[in-house]
Structures are given as C-alpha cells and as structure tokens.
C-alpha cells in the first residue's frame, strides 16, 4: 500500500506543479509543453484508480493528438514569442489570490467530507465490473447502451461546431 501511496503523491505533485507552470509561463509553447506533462501525470493517476483504459485514452487523445494540434495552432499563428502577462495590475492579482484562497478554503473543509450516500459505490465494485466486462467493455457498454443518445448528440455537436468554425473563419466561402 505505501508503494501505491508514494506513486500517487509523486504523480499528484507532478500534475499540480506542471499545471502551475503551465499557467505561469509567458511563452505559449512552454505552457503547452507543461500541459503535456500535466496530462501524462493525470493518466498515471487514472491507472491508480483501476481505470487503465481511460489512462491509455488520456495519453493517446489528450497528451497525444490534441496537444499536437495545440502546438500546430500556436506555431501557425506565430504565438511562440512570450507576450504580456494576462494578470494585469495589483487589482487582478488581488482578485486572483482571493478567489484561489476561497477555493483552498473549500478544499480544506472538504478534506473530511464523505460523499453523500447515493453516490457511494460499494468497495471493489469497479474491479468486479472490469472482471465481468473487461477493461474496454466497462466503458464501451454504457457508452453505446445507456448513454447512446447523449453520445450521438455529442457527435452532432462537434459537427455543428466544425461547420460554424469554418463559416466564421474561412477567408472566402
């Protein structure tokens, strides 16, 4: 158990630190690369949660495909050079600190909170589900069965967004 705990704290710390670096770097390329590190660390945390399939998807889709797209866009738009900071003036910094403080305070209160009864699953149910349906089946079955309609609407939503982006951005239609 301590071994798992060491791995957890290591990757959790890595995720937090790289996320912090991601939002504090001035250069967009550096931010994007730190985001890759964050996404990898999150993938490791998914493995610790027995969600290996999600972890693989996380690496393939987010850390892989989407980040490559991000970097391409940054380079195409020539955003590589460091720009001015987004946080402007002492008022902005003060507000950010205040909101961050509120969030930390909430987390401090929540550290002992127990999830409400209805959403607690009995321990070991995840492992049992994967035993019965396999790693992929545990994800795929609900996706194409219970959640079929939302899943299909998502694809339409993406199509509408693509059409909209082309309409707004294309130089000549």
């Amino acid at each position, binding site marked *: 158990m301590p071994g798992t705990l060491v791995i957890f704290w290591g990757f959790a710390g890595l995720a937090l630190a790289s996320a912090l670096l991601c939002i504090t770097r001035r250069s967009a390329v550096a931010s994007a690369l730190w985001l890759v590190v964050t996404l990898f660390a999150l993938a490791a945390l998914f493995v610790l949660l027995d969600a290996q399939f999600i972890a693989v998807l996380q690496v393939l889709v987010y850390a892989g495909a989407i980040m490559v797209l991000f970097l391409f866009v940054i380079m195409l738009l020539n955003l590589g050079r460091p720009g001015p900071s987004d946080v402007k003036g002492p008022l902005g910094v003060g507000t950010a600190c205040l909101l961050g403080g509120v969030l930390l305070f909430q987390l401090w209160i929540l550290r002992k909170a127990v*999830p*409400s*009864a*209805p*959403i607690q699953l009995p321990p070991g149910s995840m492992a049992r589900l994967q035993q019965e349906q396999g790693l992929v089946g545990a994800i795929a079955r*609900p996706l194409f069965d*219970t*959640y*079929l*309609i*939302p899943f299909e*609407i*998502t694809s*339409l*939503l993406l*199509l*509408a*967004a693509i*059409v*909209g982006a*082309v*309409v*707004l951005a294309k130089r000549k*239609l």
Partner: protein
Amino acid sequence: MNVDLSALDLSRSGDLLVALAPELLLTLAALVVLLVVAWRHRTPQDLRRAGWVTLAGLGVAALATWFLWWNVARASGIAAMIAVDDFRFVADWLFLGTAALTVLVSFRYLEREELWAPEYYVLLLFATLGMTLMAGAEDLMVLFLGLELMSVSVYVLAGINRRSAPAAEAALKYFLLGAFASGFLLYGIALVYGATATTNFTLIGVQVATLGLQHDTMLLLGLGLLLVGFGFKVAAVPFHMWAPDVYDGSPTPVTGYMATAVKAAAFAALFRLLGEAFGAVPAWREIVWWLAVATMVVGNLIALAQRSFKRMLAYSSIAHAGYLLVAVAAGTAAGSAAFVFYLVAYTLMTVAAFALLAAKGTGGERDVAIDDLAGLAQRRPWLAFALAVCMLSLLGFPGTAGFIGKWYILVAAVAAGQGLLAAILVLASVISAGYYLPVIMAMYMKPEPGEQAHAGMQLGPLGNAVVAVSVAGLLFFGVRPNRLLEIARTSGASVRVAPAVSSSAPPAARDASGR
C-alpha cells in the same frame, strides 16, 4: 394511419428509432443540406435551393412529429434520456414552425444583405435539432447537450454577417456569456447529481421524495445554479445584460429566431425540469417568483426609454420572458396550459414583428427609429395593419392571441394563489402600452417624413406569406382559442409533475448506469 405506439420500450432499438423519428429526420435533413451546400454554393440559386431543401426537411420532421402525436406515442415505464409525450410533440411543432417561418423570411434577407453563406440553413437545422432535444430531454445530460447544440449553432448565426462590426460584437458577446451560463448550468447539474446520484428527471424527483432532500444544501445549491443558467438563456432580469446588444447586432431574421425559438426551447426545458425533477422542492417557486417580477418590471421600464425599434423589441422580449415565468411560477395544470398557449402566441407575434422590421431596414435595421415608421399606414396600409396587430397582441389587446394568452396566465396565477404576481403582470402590461402604442401612433397619425420614405420596404411574396400567416393566426386564436387551448392543456398535462412527499413513495431506483 393508426399504429399502436402507446408503450414504446426505449431500451429496444426499433422502438427507440420510432420515438426519435423527428430528431433523426431533422439530423438527416441537416446532413443532406450540408452535402448540397458543399456541392453547390456559388450563386443565389444555390442559396435558394438550400433554403427549399431545409423547408422540406422541416416539413418531414413535422410530419413525423404529427405521426407520433396522432398515435399517442408513449414510453413504457420511466423514460430514460428522452421523453415521449405531448409536451415534446407540441414544443417540437413550435420549433419546427418557427424555423420554417425564419427560413421563409431569410430567403430575401440573405440575398439583400449579400450573405452568400448557405451554411446558414445547416446551422438553423442544427439549432432546431438542439431545441427539439431540449424539449424532449428526460435527462440532464441530454438537456445540456441539446442546449449546447442549439447555442453553438446560434452563436455562429448571430455572427454570420462577417462584414458587420455589430454582428461580430453580438456573436462574441453571446458566445462568451453563453459559455459562462453553460458553466453555471454544468455546475448545477454536477451538484444535483452529487445529491441524488442520478441525472434522470423522474428519478431525481423520486430521490428527492424518498431521501427527503427538499432542504438539502447541495440540492438547493444545484437548483439555484441551474436557475441562473436558465435565467441567462431566457434573458430573465438580472441575467439579461447580453440580450439587447446581441439582439440588436444580429441579422434580423436570426434575432427573430433567437427571441422566439431559442427562448421557447429554454423555457420548455426549464418547465419540464422544474415539474418532473423538482416538483416536490418548494424553494424554486419563490426564486421564479422574484425572477418573474424583476423581469417584467425592469424589461418594461427600460423598453420605454428606447428610440430604436429593434432595441425596443429586444427589451419587449425580455418583458415577455417575465410573463412566461409567471406561468411557470403558477406551476399548476392551468399554468402549464397557459404557458404553452402563450409560447405559441408570443412566437407568432414576435416572428411577424421581426419580419416586418427586416423588411423596413436596408443594410442595418439597427438604425430604424420608431419615428421612421411615420406615415406607413398611408403608403403601405397592409404592412401597417400587420405591424399594428403584432403590437396590439404584444400589448395584450382583446381580440388578439396575446390577450387570450395573458388572460389564461392571469387566471392560472390567481388560481394558484399568486394574486400579487397577477397584479404586477397587469401593471407591467399597462406600462408596456407606453412603448407599443407609439409605434401604431407613428404609423397612423403622423405624416410621412419624405416622399419616398417607405419605398424600399419590401417583404417579397414569401415574407408577405409569413406575416399574413402569423397575423391571421394571431387574430384567429384571439377569437377562437379553444382548439389551441385544448392542445396546450393536454400537452402541458403530459409533463408528469413529481409527486409531493409521501411516506409510501417507491424505493429509490439506482442510477440507470447501474443496470
């Protein structure tokens, strides 16, 4: 054609296809238009062809909806994800009809403004699809995705005129504030899920009753955030800040569509959500009460100060959201009937008013002041008459559908013990006379400013048909509302309101994902 559809089992694929037929046909229509548009998109004829294909698609979807309605299609047991009831069918008709009227008005508008973007019709179909999903949503996930599908399409429609700076401003403002509102909605959904462990409306209602969650902090916080999100979408005061600028900057047919169908879809979803999931939670009635009062009073007062006709209509549509909230706050069967009836009447009068405004202005209806309509009655008696009927109906003048709608809302509010709310509604309507009547006065009692002041005001045959149909509907339902009211009553009653708390409630079912 009579088929037994009274017990559709939504877990069987065949029954699911039947239950979703209107949405599937609408999707098919959108994809067909997308292909047609990709193939031919250079000349005005191509633009018109895309419009006709869109109209055909809307017609087929309306027929499918009629087929389900005629055969009294119902889902057996608790409907997962999508509802199969009269409320959904009637709301779908409203959205499909509004979309069809918008398409008819757009034919001429797109050519006049030289907007050679036939994707306009694709986005219109996607937006309508999102609305039908919202009105049929039985699950917070479907509700959210439908809302996003609608919103994303309408953001783009608002900014489809890329040469216009106000349109770009409108689109960006709408997008940013809409995304903000979606954030509120999602946070609310997460908290409601945290409190009840389900996203199904009916099961939320069951969980609230069995676990006694009426005063649970997490559930109430989630409900509050949901109401904030919906408040943004229907432009209820104090979440209305975006509406005037967005309505003002968007192309006028799109504004008409936003002020009617988009608002109606958000209202339909809100109505179902509050009834089915939170029927047993008393807290929302008070929130909706205050929202309704603020929206009616503030919307009407600011509308009084407007010189621009388009901005005046924008604030008027905010005020009308307040009237609809009164019907929601009543929360009874009579309230739901009044709600559906008023939605139909409001849609007719607003679509016609915006169609007339689109005809009046060339290259920017933003600048049409109310005084610019002076003398319209001498030059264009029929257009002036149509606009006068719309204004009177918006005001709630007897003999128009607007009056009957307001009357039923008042009756429902008083019957539900909301006498004060009814009184405020009447007072707000009196205020609204201060900005609707000057339009009629300008048209009929003021001299025309110049010889050719109204020469450019052309609707075209299709636009004329839209206005004629809307005005005829307003006058007809203003005199003979019985049939429409009957449909409104059965459809409003088909939303199963969650029972008040009782000790003999059925045991809480696990979330649908657990099966």
